[in-house]
């Protein structure tokens, strides 16, 4: 508490601060260089996609000149893709599936994570570990048995089948990351609410969930991403174009016979990538770590 007055009387500390700042500068430089390097690697494909999406098919096919330059930029690919009813069906399917999956996942895994993090019951530890191990099983191993199950439910070739299947990926992981976050919230907070007169559900809704929001949002982002970008399961379970989500729709349906409409595929893929970007940007505002600040001694 009184350290600020102490520093004033100790020139030594200034001296130290000087050497610290040069160390800091060095750290900043390495950080910037590696970040720029990483940004180039990760951003090159989408940038190239964007460039291609602005080209006519003729220009794409033209091999002279740098492929990174657009000579006659055009929005015709976007117009074509947005005017394509199949694309809109894919988009709608993706939205429908993702919203359902995120809702189902968050309800199940928030409750599960709360139970596993808070209520000590017989086998809760083993269960928590088990939840995580489930996540480690690769989907490529699971899709054959899941095919049987989805088939048994009569949901093959239906986007609802995907709504049933995706939570097997999202629930374990979301539960697992939320267990970690929930455990970091002081349990006195829920105890105080219970003593104040809250029932378990009131405590959960009015105290715990608002406080746990950063963790819940992190899990939501994950569930959203997994569900929006899923590729293996829809490839395996859906063959009717009407039921396809964007990921497989764009690649399987926009290719007519042997002609790859590269411009349109890229425009479609970019449009498909837009919702996650928007969702991230929107949720990041709320995803402020340290929302519990002030709850305890601090």
């Amino acid at each position: 508490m009184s350290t600020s007055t102490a520093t004033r009387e100790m020139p030594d500390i200034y001296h130290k601060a000087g050497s610290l700042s040069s160390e800091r500068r060095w750290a900043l430089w390495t950080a910037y260089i590696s970040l720029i390097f990483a940004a180039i690697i990760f951003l090159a494909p989408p940038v190239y996609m964007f460039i291609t999406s602005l080209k006519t098919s003729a220009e794409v096919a033209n091999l002279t000149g740098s492929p990174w330059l657009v000579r006659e930029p055009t929005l015709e690919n976007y117009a074509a893709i947005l005017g394509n009813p199949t694309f809109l069906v894919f988009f709608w399917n993706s939205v429908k599936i993702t919203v359902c999956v995120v809702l189902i996942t968050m309800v199940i895994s928030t409750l599960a994570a709360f139970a596993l993090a808070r209520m000590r019951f017989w086998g809760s530890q083993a269960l928590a570990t088990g939840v995580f191990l489930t996540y480690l099983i690769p989907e490529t191993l699971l899709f054959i048995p899941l095919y049987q199950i989805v088939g048994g439910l009569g949901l093959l070739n239906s986007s609802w089948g995907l709504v049933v299947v995706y939570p097997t990926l999202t629930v374990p992981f979301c539960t697992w990351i939320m267990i970690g976050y929930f455990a970091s919230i002081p349990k006195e907070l829920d105890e105080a609410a219970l003593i104040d007169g809250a029932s378990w559900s009131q405590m959960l809704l009015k105290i715990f969930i608002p406080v746990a929001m950063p963790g819940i949002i992190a899990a939501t982002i994950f569930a959203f991403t997994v569900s929006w970008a899923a590729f293996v399961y829809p490839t395996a379970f859906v063959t009717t174009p009407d039921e396809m989500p964007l990921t497989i729709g764009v690649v399987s349906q926009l290719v007519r016979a042997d002609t790859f409409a590269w411009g349109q595929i890229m425009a479609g893929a970019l449009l498909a990538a837009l919702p996650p970007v928007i969702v991230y940007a929107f949720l990041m505002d709320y995803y402020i770590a340290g929302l519990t600040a002030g709850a305890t001694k601090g």
Partner: protein
Amino acid sequence: MAEVSVRKVVKAYEGNVQAVKGIDLEIADHEFVVLVGPSGCGKSTTLRMIAGLEEITSGEIAIGGTVVNDIPPRDRDIAMVFQNYALYPHMSVYENMAFGLTLRKFAKEEIAKRVNNAARILDIEALLQRKPKALSGGQRQRVAMGRAIVRDPKVFLFDEPLSNLDAKLRVQMRTEIKKVHQRVRTTTVYVTHDQVEAMTLADRVVVMNHGIIEQVGPPQELYHSPKTRFVAGFIGSPAMNFFPAQVENGSGALRVILPNGVALPVPTDRTARYQAMAGREVIFGIRPEHLTEPKNLDRDNIAVFEVTPEVIEPMGMETLVHFWMQGAEICARIDPTTPAEPGRPMQLAADLNHMHLIDVQSGRVL
């Protein structure tokens, strides 16, 4: 407001760890009871069982005459202040204090009245619209207390509410808590491991050790007549001095022989009490303030001896003298005006009217 009864309460955690080993405690209406004891002795566990946050393995707890064993915390009509305050971080101070009342469906005006009243008592009126993160430790502490006060519950429970504050603020808030209690007179159970806090706040102090209650009594009683060696050593700062000793029945008078051969005559009013111990090993205990300069004591029942101080600690109001005797570090309390120097022998006297003899086997004070 209500009385609290704890009857034969046992708490066993998994793996058969008994944190609380069958305690009995009757707390009267309006009483301020402090549970004190070393870390891990089961104070918090006891408090949390009263709150209903921890299940009772066996036994019975009653609040206001109703057995609450199977009643959830929210229906026990209690309020608790936690060591880490546990303020709701997403709510303003006002909302924090109003939360319990809102859940209990109080009218808006009544809530406002109570919150403002509590805020006035605790001097936090200016902070009502702030979020907890914009408060200092002491202010958070007050809000946590405010949250308890507005509810006007049957019982207040405090679990080390001051241990996160710095020393000065702790003393200040201690007085504050006492003031609040004198004002609202709610039955209070207060847990601390700080014996000064216990002594200053309590109507009655409960000293716990290893899951049992060692002694219950008003602060002065615990200080002057501890029943066990543990209580004798725990209450009081600096702690009581202990020496191994032997009781001897020599030439008609009972004497206590210290390991260095010094023989202390037992005051006559105590001979009957100690007679049975003649010839037995005991522990001789005496508080630092009863080990002082001879001039400060009555001539009766004192034993004067010479010591060589090792360390002198001037405290302002008094001076502590530490010396070694037969491998035990002993502390004496002298006048700040008395000259004392490390290494220079000086005379001290033990006031035998205030000595304690402790049975080696049972640890009971005789």
